[in-house]
């Protein structure tokens, strides 16, 4: 078996991923601190009060959250300009689903990861996972949620940001819904994020994938096991080039 490394991520992709991840975590930390209503406070603790006193008041926390949000959006726009091709490739891969193969993969993977292969064998199912492409269905599901969610969060965030800067009283209905959508969407994407971080950073099987988010390359062995359809495609492309 060869140890050839296969290119998986461009430098700008890697930068974008970590830039995005850092922005998200900071936005999450500051954003939760902005919720101070016992009915919706997700932690139900004194966290917002503590954070507010750390930064010198709720107003400062809001400014910080807004500045981070704008930085995040600008970062994304710059990335889209620099690596539009990469972004298009990403979106095409992420939204390309072959339902039968991918759904089966998803169900089997969830059982394997939590209960192991036995339940599948007991049901008379083959625990072998169907081959996957550049991204597996789990990655695609999370990526879709974060792309759609990211757009919703950015748009509702801008609406809220502009609320006391440009909008008149007639717009308050829309602003109220922006607040609600922002809250719900962040919650849903965060639920996915927990699994994403586990799979990417903690699960030992995905260690080469984790390293690739720094180096940009994965070993052929890993690519073959985890992203067979992509591996095959890259190999045949390579052969065409060398022929």
């Amino acid at each position, binding site marked *: 078996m060869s140890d050839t490394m296969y290119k998986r991520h461009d430098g700008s992709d890697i930068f974008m991923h970590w830039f995005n991840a850092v922005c998200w975590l900071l936005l999450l930390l500051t954003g939760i601190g902005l919720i101070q*209503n016992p009915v919706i406070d997700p932690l139900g603790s004194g966290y917002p009060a503590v954070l507010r006193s750390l930064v010198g008041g709720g107003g400062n926390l809001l400014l910080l959250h807004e500045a981070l949000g704008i930085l995040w959006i600008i970062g994304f726009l710059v990335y889209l300009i620099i690596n539009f091709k990469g972004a298009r490739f990403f979106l095409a891969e992420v939204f390309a689903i072959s339902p039968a193969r991918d759904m089966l993969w998803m169900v089997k993977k969830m059982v394997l990861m*939590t209960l192991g292969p036995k339940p599948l064998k007991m049901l008379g199912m083959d625990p072998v996972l169907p081959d996957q492409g550049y991204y597996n269905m789990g990655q695609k599901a999370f990526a879709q949620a974060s792309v759609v969610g990211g757009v919703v969060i950015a748009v509702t965030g801008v609406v809220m940001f502009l609320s006391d800067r440009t909008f*008149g*009283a007639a717009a308050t209905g829309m602003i*109220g819904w922006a*607040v609600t959508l922002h809250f719900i969407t962040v*919650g849903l994407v965060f639920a996915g994020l927990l*699994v994403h971080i586990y799979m990417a950073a903690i699960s030992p099987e995905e260690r080469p994938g984790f390293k690739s988010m720094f180096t940009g390359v994965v070993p052929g062995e890993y690519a073959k096991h985890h992203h067979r359809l992509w591996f095959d495609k890259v190999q045949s492309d390579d052969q065409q080039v060398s022929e």
Partner: protein
Amino acid sequence: MAQQLAMIIDASKCIDCKGCMIACKVANNVPEDQWRNWIKGESGMSRPGKHNGTTKFQPGACMHCDKPTCVEACPTGATYKDEMTGEVVIDESLCIGCGNCIPACPYGARFRNATKRKADKCNYCPERRAQGLLPACVDTCPTKARVFGDINDPDSEAGRLFLKNKEQLTRVAARTETKPNMFYIGDPGPRDWGGEAVTPASMIAMKEAAPFIKGIVGLSGLGVLAMLGRQLIAGSDTDHKENDDV
């Protein structure tokens, strides 16, 4: 005991001069067509001829309620009940003017300030109080119909009036009970014009969604724990790899 800043109003002293409204507008730079306070009158009382009952004018403003429905409608705590003074405060640096609190006040005391684009209402003139002055409306009132102070302090004028008139103090009723801290001595004139506290649909949706969001995040967390548990107990799953190396 913590303070409860409040107003004790004698509606029978009010002559409807609107001095309090003007003084408030000037002191607080309230935009045109917007008001932080009001004087309500009985309709039709200025007709000539026989008139039933006494003429009453009712000065009012934000009542700094004990059970403020506006605070319940605010997602961020930008408006809150100050535990020390009993005031209902708006933190303008945190308010983004989403408008949730405005229909949530059954007395219509709140509005969205047209220039600041944030929630606005009576705040008992904190700048004036810091200088040792009374709120503008109280200071300007020629008949002293409005008395302001801490009703929990029996030595203050408001506290004295509050205790002395305990039996005959009334509040303006609203369809939603908010326990307002605006007290009228005797007959306040129109007494049940207060409406219903309306929480915008978007805020209701957010409150109802919150437990579901928590549930979904919780399930996801449990899933991660299950995977982590299996990773620690069973080691990494190698089953699917064997078959690949054919």
